[in-house]
């Protein structure tokens, strides 16, 4: 017996949005609290510290982090373009933009890997100082979110895209939800970049 989950590809009469969209926004609200707690900890420690162990721009690689910011901002554009392509019934363009999103995400991780290995090579670990504890915790958690996004997007580009043939509306809804998650990952980085690398 198959069970049909209601209001997956049509808006719920009470909320006006699909259950999938409401669900992803609820999840993102919980994510705001998770990152918000860590981020506010950093801001309060940083502004109230008499002597801060390190100045981000002195010990971290700002040009590489700026390149990573460009990668994430560009991937945010490509993922929203992949959703727009599906709205225009263009699966080929969707695949191109989603592929670019994944490629840029991998680019972000490669740069993060270079940064981390350089830090470890110079003997900087989370236990080294409060600054590095905060740096590795926040960028590590953000990096895990990037990995989660890549896995989801790879599925939607590969086997998950078969849904387009039979249920195009539902598939477009899935891409919109994946896009909302990815924009959130970009949004977190937009705040982490100045807070960790530039202040």
């Amino acid at each position: 017996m198959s069970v049909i989950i209601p209001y997956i590809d049509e808006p719920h009469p009470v909320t006006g949005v699909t259950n999938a969209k409401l669900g992803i926004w609820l999840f993102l609200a919980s994510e705001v609290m998770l990152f918000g707690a860590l981020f506010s900890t950093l801001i309060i420690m940083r502004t109230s510290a008499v002597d801060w162990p390190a100045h981000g721009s002195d010990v971290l690689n700002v040009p590489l982090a700026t390149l990573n910011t460009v990668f994430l901002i560009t991937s945010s554009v490509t993922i929203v373009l992949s959703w727009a392509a599906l709205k225009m019934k263009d699966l080929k363009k969707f695949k191109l933009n989603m592929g670019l999103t994944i490629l840029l995400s991998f680019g972000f991780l490669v740069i993060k890997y270079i940064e981390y290995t350089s830090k470890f090579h110079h003997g900087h670990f989370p236990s080294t100082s409060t600054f590095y504890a905060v740096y590795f915790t926040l960028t590590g958690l953000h990096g895990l979110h990037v990995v989660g996004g890549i896995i989801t997007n790879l599925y939607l580009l590969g086997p998950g895209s078969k849904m387009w043939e039979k249920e195009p509306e539902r598939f477009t809804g899935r891409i919109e939800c994946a896009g909302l998650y990815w924009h959130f990952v970009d949004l977190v980085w937009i705040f982490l970049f100045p807070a960790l690398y530039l202040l």
Partner: protein
Amino acid sequence: MSHGEMTVEEVKKHVKKYYVVFGALLCLTVITVGISYLHLPIFQAVLLGMAVASLKGGLVAAYFMHLIDEKKIIYSMLWLTVVLFAFCMLIPLFTLHGYK
């Protein structure tokens, strides 16, 4: 209007906006990096850095996440999140008051 009911022409208009926002985000990134070279006192630097970041975040949320024309239930949920987040921020700030 729900995003599920958009026509092809409306989607094309949205796409143009995405490119404009993309350009604005790149410009704001350059400004963010530029601010770090001003070597401002920490409080002003945090304030200015977060102001530019908030502007960038606002553009992403408004246009890429379509919050500019979203349903009331989504706004209600996000306002509740903002209130709870502000509350979490205020608790430690109050404990810092008078601390030497």
